[in-house]
């Protein structure tokens, strides 16, 4: 059985298991929808008071918001294994068994669970659609392609962050809540266009954790605006590639962690 078939088998088992509790599935999805939708309520309240932020309208910010939230939702569902890697694999010693199997570790951890959560994705989709119609975004095939490429870069970036978070638990054994700064905090930061932030924070979000590369720059291109920060127009649609670069780096750090792993002995 090749890797893809094995992964699909993992996914099938995970989906069947979750659908054993349909009511729980509904409750958790509804809760995630409302839990993530309150953010746009806050954004809308602020726009109600102030009108604009650094020249951007609510409709434009809604497009940024929708893209980054959708990317995170899509990355969050399959990477559950990395998210709970510390407590579920390292502390329990379950990673010993993973190492014994003749398959790559990343694939097996990825197969831990495909979390069926559509609340945030639905919310992001609605906000994106409302924002896109408010700014009269036209969807040419090139635009749709750019949107898909942007989302793919975002999924890669957030997956990379979660892989790094998991790698950290090789050293700390348990999960570090501080890592939420990069996932949920990254979503929060990416909801607004980059030029609202101070320069040092923009640089952090561009060169260290390239949230801006999977949200701000490509969405500026999507909106057909010119970048107030002065990035050249040809570069904007290419930036999501940095999401993939980040994931590749994260996976090589992951291999370092695996090589360093000594069982907890439990």
């Amino acid at each position: 059985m090749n890797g893809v078939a094995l992964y699909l088998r993992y996914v099938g088992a995970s989906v069947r298991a979750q659908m054993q509790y349909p009511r729980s599935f509904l409750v958790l999805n509804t809760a995630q929808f409302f839990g993530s939708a309150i953010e746009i309520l806050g954004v809308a309240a602020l726009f109600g008071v102030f009108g604009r932020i650094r020249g951007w309208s609510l409709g434009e910010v809604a497009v940024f918001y929708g893209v980054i939230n959708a990317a995170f939702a899509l990355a969050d569902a399959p990477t559950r294994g990395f998210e709970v890697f510390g407590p579920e694999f390292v502390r329990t010693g379950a990673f010993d068994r993973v190492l014994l199997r003749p398959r790559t570790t990343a694939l097996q951890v990825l197969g831990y669970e495909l979390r069926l959560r559509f609340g945030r994705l639905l919310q992001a989709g609605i906000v994106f659609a409302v924002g896109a119609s408010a700014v009269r975004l036209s969807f040419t095939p090139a635009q749709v392609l750019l949107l898909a490429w942007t989302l793919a870069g975002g999924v890669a970036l957030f997956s990379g962050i979660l892989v790094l978070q998991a790698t950290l638990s090789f050293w700390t054994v348990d999960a570090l809540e501080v890592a939420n700064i990069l996932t949920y905090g990254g979503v929060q930061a990416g909801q607004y266009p980059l030029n609202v932030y101070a320069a040092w924070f923009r640089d952090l979000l561009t060169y260290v954790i390239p949230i801006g590369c999977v949200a701000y720059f490509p969405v500026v291109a999507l909106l057909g605006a010119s970048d107030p920060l002065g990035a050249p127009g040809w570069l904007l649609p290419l930036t999501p590639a940095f999401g993939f670069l980040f994931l590749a780096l994260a996976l090589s750090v992951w291999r370092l962690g695996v090589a360093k792993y000594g069982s907890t002995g439990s």
Partner: protein
Amino acid sequence: MLRPYLAVLSARFQLVLQYRAAALAGFATQCWWGGMKVLIYSAFYAGARAAPMSFAHTVSYTWLGQAFLMFLPWYADPEVADMVRTGAVAYERLRPVDAWGWWYARALAWTAARIAPRAGLMFVTAAVIMPLVGLGRWGLRLPADGAAVALFCAAILAAALLSATMTVLLNVVVAASLTDRGANAFAAPISIVLSGSLVPLAFFPHAFVPFLRLQPFAGLIDTPFRVWNGELAGLNAVGAIGLQLAWTLVLGILGRCAVESVMSRVQVQGG
């Protein structure tokens, strides 16, 4: 009379206080969040329109919101949820104490012990260190006078008393539904919006603001912080604190009735 309740209060307080790493992690997360909110507010305030609160007040409100984040009833008491799951909740019926008072004392200690270190650290960071390193414009401003400090302390105390009644109500929902998932999933978003933790209540549309300030969640965040900023002073502040205490009483009585009714037919799972 009160001894067992005070004992569980102090025991739980000291126990939760031991989790220093959790407190530090929470503090770091809240600094990041507070900083990001302040950056965003600063960009909004750079526009031309007038806001219902001054920038300095909004910034203070934001830092205080991070310092006292644990006033929000994020979830039911995890120990109670655990008891419900394992069936140990049956032991709660054997204790010669009032079930509501027992859970209330635990909730109060749990809230206070998670707040004390974070609020202390946040205060030192935002009100002392930030001005010292030249970031005073983005830091926490102190209240105008001693009277405001005294009223703020009273409002914070009232917020703690109020918050614990909400936690007990969540405990009851957990005990009745036999799982903490449902209650926990909805408690956080509702309280984040209605308390003023998401954005200060003054930023919502004018027509809603008076009503938003009457509902109980406003007493957790909005009321004490407006006292700190001096927007509520003198009799207005006393009245607002009175409202916090009134809600504490109402939710307390409601919780007590609910605990009695749920615990009299509690189902024990497992064994």
